[in-house]
């Protein structure tokens, strides 16, 4: 950078100076193109392929690029390996700014080129790294093979060799392609073309119909023959610990309000007894009963549910189902407590999407594991937790508006799935 870009200005007027400039160009470009040090950066699947490419089998060292620098100040190349989320975007821009020029960017994988698998119905993924930083080379694939990455590296090398100090490297500009919906774009353009074609062809078609009234296409699409396979009976998995019926009856003896969710008319006991062996017992509990039940099943010697698998929720029109999945390490049985939380519709309609609609008691003092899980439920559904020590958003920014896993969630950046 810097000094050599003045070389043409100073040397060109001198006779023969042109050749000196060309020679400088050649040497500098040769050095730059052959010594590309990447930055250690990776967020997801592509990072593993990037690592594979630097490992013994593929060995990026052959290109002189095995010097993965963890500090951006010593790197030349930014391999964007893995999905870029909106939360990560500022960090990526900062990293790019910290790389001293001339710096190059390879967008590796579908996620960084266009959003990849996360284009539609997504509120958190940046659709393409071009939105954030200028990208030099695109390597499609999900994830690309190490060879594909090498091909990208060679493409970049060719690109660097084209630079001269008369036409030096300069910082590019990011381009806004965030709202690009290639599917709809292509479909709309085509629809317009089709209308035009219909108009043009109308006559010809009518004529053709007159001439060949009983036209039959000679093209017969051949369906691929699919292999025939036998029906196989499902063998349910083994069950350990108490049966569902035993669990349910014991729980019911203590808490008469518990039920199971069913559409049939049979008595609840029969429904429970007919459950397949490998389906966990899922009982509906009322909010008042929830905390006592959790305490009971944790401490009771017969239940001994000491292991929390997961706390999650499901959003329905007028209520949330919060499911607490518990397991007994000693006995091996599982029980799912489904807590129905009615949505608080006293909140004005236009504020509902951004406010907490229901509150449940926190069980984080019984299960430390629940602390983070409940934060996740709070973050995704907007269910508050009484007695939670640290109720903050966990996956999204603290100023994110709305709760994404609700069915009525909207986000300005979200594009609906077209198909």
């Amino acid at each position: 950078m810097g000094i050599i870009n003045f070389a043409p200005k100073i040397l060109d007027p001198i006779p023969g100076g042109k050749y000196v400039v060309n020679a400088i160009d050649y040497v500098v470009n040769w050095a730059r193109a052959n010594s590309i040090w990447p930055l250690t950066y990776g967020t997801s699947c592509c990072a593993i392929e990037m690592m594979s490419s630097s490992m013994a089998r593929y060995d990026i060292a052959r290109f002189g690029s095995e010097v993965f620098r963890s500090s951006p100040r010593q790197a030349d190349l930014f391999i964007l390996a893995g999905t870029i989320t909106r939360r990560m975007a500022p960090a990526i821009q900062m990293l790019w700014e910290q790389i001293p020029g001339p710096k190059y960017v390879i967008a590796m994988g579908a996620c960084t080129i266009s959003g990849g698998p996360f284009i539609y119905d997504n509120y958190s993924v940046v659709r393409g790294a071009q939105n954030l930083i200028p990208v030099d080379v695109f390597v499609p694939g999900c994830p690309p093979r190490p060879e594909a990455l090498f091909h990208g590296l060679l493409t970049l090398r060719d690109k660097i060799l084209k630079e001269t100090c008369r036409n030096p490297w300069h910082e590019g500009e990011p381009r806004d392609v965030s709202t690009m919906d290639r599917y709809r774009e292509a479909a709309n353009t085509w629809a317009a073309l089709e209308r035009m074609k219909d108009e043009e062809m109308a006559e010809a078609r009518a004529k053709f119909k007159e001439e060949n009234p009983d036209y039959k296409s000679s093209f017969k699409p051949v369906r691929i023959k699919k292999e025939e396979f036998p029906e196989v009976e499902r063998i349910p998995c083994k069950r350990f610990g108490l049966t569902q019926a035993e669990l349910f009856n014991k729980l019911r003896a203590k808490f008469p309000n518990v039920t199971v969710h069913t559409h049939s008319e049979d008595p609840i006991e029969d429904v429970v007894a007919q459950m397949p062996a490998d389906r966990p017992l899922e009982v509906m509990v009322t909010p008042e009963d929830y905390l006592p039940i959790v305490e009971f099943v944790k401490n009771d010697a017969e239940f001994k549910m000491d292991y929390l698998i997961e706390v999650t929720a499901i959003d329905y029109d007028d209520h949330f189902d919060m499911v607490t999945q518990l397991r007994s390490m000693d006995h091996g049985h599982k029980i799912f407590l489904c807590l129905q939380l009615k949505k608080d519709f006293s909140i004005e309609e236009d504020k509902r999407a951004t406010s907490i609609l229901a509150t449940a008691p926190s069980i984080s003092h019984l299960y430390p594991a629940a602390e983070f899980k409940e934060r996740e439920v709070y973050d995704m559904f907007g269910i508050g937790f009484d007695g939670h020590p640290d109720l903050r958003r966990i996956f999204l920014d603290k100023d994110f508006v709305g709760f994404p896993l609700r069915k009525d969630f909207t986000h300005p950046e979200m594009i609906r799935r077209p198909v």
Partner: protein
Amino acid sequence: MSQLPPGFRITRETNTEEFFINMGPQHPSTHGALRLALRMEGETIIELVPHFGYIHRGIEKQAESMSYLQYIALSDRQDYLTAIQNNLGVVIALEKGMNIGVPEKQEYIRVMLQELGRIASHLVFFGCFGGDLGGQTCLLFGFKEREMIHDILEEVTGSRLTTNYFRPGGSRFDVPDTFIPRVKAFVDHLEGAMSDYERFLSKNIIVLDRSVGIGILSKEDAIAYGCSGPVLRASGVNFDVRRANPYSIYDQMDFEVPVAYNGDCYDRYKVRIAEIHESMKILRQCIDKFPKEGAWRAKEKPVRLPVGRYYSEIETAKGLYATYVVAATTGEKPYRIHTRGPSFPHIAALNKMVQGHKISDLVTILATLDPVIPEIDR
């Protein structure tokens, strides 16, 4: 300190100056985009607060508008180190819903690919553990054998990482004829290679110094925090879904669940290495018993689930991977799919483990927890 940043809770009197360090989201040893806020006194960590969400991709939201088959493809991208195991986790839940079984040959294929995936993941762990301790060579050794697994997976499924292979009732393809000989050759090769690698790392005095007694997670804490997989087993709990709740044909396999009792970094390392050996044992049994004849998948049916909630759990290399499918209407789209990734509780327990240790130990502990961040954030 008058006002602590969010998440920090310990109040303490101190005469020395505390300071805060941000580790990540782009840091060579956080295994992805994880940010750890450290409260330090000199080099000693007082408290740690993990910040997630730097790779939160909204997979669960997206799944609601996808068909079940498309979700299998998406599940590859959660725990990308063993995508093949995620596939199975989803597929078992779907099979429960569709109430279809799996022919015997397919069960063998499943078990073999599961174990190959487990070995692949543990080899990455082996590499990263050595690499994070400062031995770069280890990293390459781990990946060297992993490439052979990738090769087998590519031949069988068509892709190195994102396999998208299993389908309800079977799989995308039958295995090629070369599959069994290749796996056999691989297991034989790995036997020799592992003995070299164990000689390389297991008895090294610096490794022992760095990992024995570091990051102890007691049995009670491990259960309370919901840890699973090798982390739980290293704390002395004999819990493996393959034994505790067998799926596929794991109940016919003869293998041991390695358990260690100290709960420190070295035990977690030891358990994983022992698991590689157990996986090789299972692979050898499968090679011997592999049925030559027979259908490799059940009758193909459209993937439609009746109304209900379906739950499946499998043991991936990291631990308990549970899929919870809610079908509110009979159809090919889920109402909601929730995944329980094993790494999430491990990071939740991280704060408990690192307190009072040095910043170098944090790297060791994080390496032995072997988290995959996209699986946490989803």
